[in-house]
């Protein structure tokens, strides 16, 4: 190739721009967002959740989630107790997308539990992915590279919380991304934004001004299946021992 100095100098800024555009694919290149300054988590206050399903609908719309699959869902627990024996009934019709029919049974302990990816710090799903298509971003969000996923489903098996599914059209694993496209732009997640009772709150554990720190200090907060030591970052306030 015969490239004169003049042409080279003209092409140089274009190449630099192209390189910037490539770099823009990484979160670091997004303006005002630095991955090293965040460590994302979510807080769910079970006592505030009314099971309206807004979060499920918002998530499906925001992330184009196919019917019958869920990046987030709501479970309704109804627990009765006779002679010291607990009877646990759980339902989640359509993932709780359209809310729940009121229960007429008396004397039950009843509550709603919103569920989603726990964005575990030591996530079993990223551990087992054979090609590293599932990975944890430096800001603590577990993501999936859709162009790299083999669709082997090992991660679906490894997730203890049932948060993953295989998208019927892309044949790749999918799950909650914590609305990464939103939070890196300074927005909150779709589910948090629409929650009418603020039962869900996005939290940045690296931000010293985030109210999560005060909340964690003053409340009895629990994660799901703590014995599995996944480093789950979906913190529940008021979590009943019956919840799995």
């Amino acid at each position, binding site marked *: 190739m015969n490239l004169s100095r003049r042409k080279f100098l003209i092409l140089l800024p274009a190449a630099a721009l192209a390189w910037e555009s490539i770099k823009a694919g990484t979160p670091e290149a997004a303006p005002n967002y630095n991955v090293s300054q965040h460590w994302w988590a979510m807080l769910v206050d079970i006592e505030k959740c009314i099971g309206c399903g807004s979060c499920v609908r918002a998530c499906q719309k925001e992330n184009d989630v196919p019917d019958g699959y869920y990046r987030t869902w709501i479970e309704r627990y109804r627990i009765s107790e006779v002679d010291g024996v607990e009877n646990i009934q759980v339902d989640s019709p359509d993932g709780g997308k359209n809310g729940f029919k009121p229960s007429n049974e008396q004397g039950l302990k009843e509550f709603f539990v919103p569920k989603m990816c726990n964005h575990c710090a030591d996530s*079993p799903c990223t551990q087992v992915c054979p090609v590293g298509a599932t990975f944890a971003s430096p800001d603590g969000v577990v993501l999936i590279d859709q162009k790299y996923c*083999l669709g*082997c489903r090992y991660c679906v098996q490894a997730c203890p919380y*049932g948060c993953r599914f295989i998208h019927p059209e892309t044949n790749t694993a999918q799950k909650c991304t914590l609305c990464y496209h939103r939070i890196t732009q300074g927005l909150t997640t779709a589910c948090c934004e629409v929650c009418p009772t603020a039962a869900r709150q996005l939290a940045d554990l690296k931000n010293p001004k985030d109210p999560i720190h005060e909340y964690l200090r003053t409340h009895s907060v629990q994660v799901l299946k703590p014995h599995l030591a996944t480093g789950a970052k979906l913190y529940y306030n008021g979590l009943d021992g019956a919840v799995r």
Partner: protein
Amino acid sequence: MPTFEGFMYPNEIELQWSVLIVLYPFLTGLVAGAFILASLERVFRVEAVKPTYRLALLTALAFLLVAPLPLQLHLGHPERSLEMYLTPHRSSAMAMFGFVYLWYLMAVLVLEIWLDYRRDIVMLAQSSTGWRRLLYRVLTLGSYNISEAALDLDNRVGWIITVIGIPSAFLLHGYVGFIFGSIKANPWWSTPLMPVVFLFSAMVSGIAAVMLIYMVVSRIRRTPIDMRCVDAVAKYLFYTFIIDFTLEMLDLIHRIYESDESFRSLDFMVHTRLFLSQVILQILLGTVTPILLLAVTQVFKLSEAVRKRIYSLAGSLTLIGILAMRWNVVIGGQLFSKSFLGYTTYKMGLWAREGLATAIVLMLLPIFILWVLVKILPPWPEKEKGLLSHAASAGD
């Protein structure tokens, strides 16, 4: 959509791993088992099993060539499977499959078969004509030296490869067990015993398969079955089966005694959805019955004809039992919710990509490959080869 009862997490209702993933450990198990049987003769100098030596190696190769196919057919993006070799994720148990597989295929099995057959290949390259001549010439890899010294060297190198091959065979199938056993999210799978149970069940299935194939092939070739050999193989099958059954029972008793939070769920499953495949097929028909049948042959002096029938029956039941065991592990492990509050069902399609027809083809494919391999590399002693060609020409 599968029917379910109780509560399943909404994404759990659909099973992720189908009957093809049942075949994967079954096929690799046969490979490992057949190889370990072959190595008995080579390394431990068990002369009695010599008639099965080459047949066992070819059986292992035939099944090993098919082993990755169910995985490939199962992937959502099979065209990306090479990424497992190019950019393996080191923390993933599954990522190592490609390397373990290639190591076993290329560094152990193919090499050992080539060294063992090298003299035959050279002689066939010189005596055959047409495309067979070309094929054998390629298989010689340009080495025509079959002097005593060269064959002695082949033999010594072959011995070393077999010695390396035994832990490799253990690795191959123990590793498959680890893929399941290391999933802490699933209590049905998560046990350190899983690789060991997989390994011994692999040995059981491989030994049974080679014993059956040897008897069937002998019948097809109308050559007498070497009963000293089959008796020895059956004895090894019996001993290995006892260890395998003991390990499986240890796992079961441990679960019952510990009765952790998953126990009620798993117990319910064994008594309902898995009753036929686990209690009837795996334990009673596929394990206890063949062990008792084999025990009878060890204790009583039976006639040759009766022993042959018992071995055939015990071998067939063993294979059914081990296939049922793989089914119960893979499918059984997905029938209950990780919430321990519900159960789903598995409906196998007939013509679907991961359906019954595909599974049957994948089960028959190794038999076809073995047939081709046997045609190219006859595993019989030389004095019998004349009989074979005679029989073949008579058949034509």
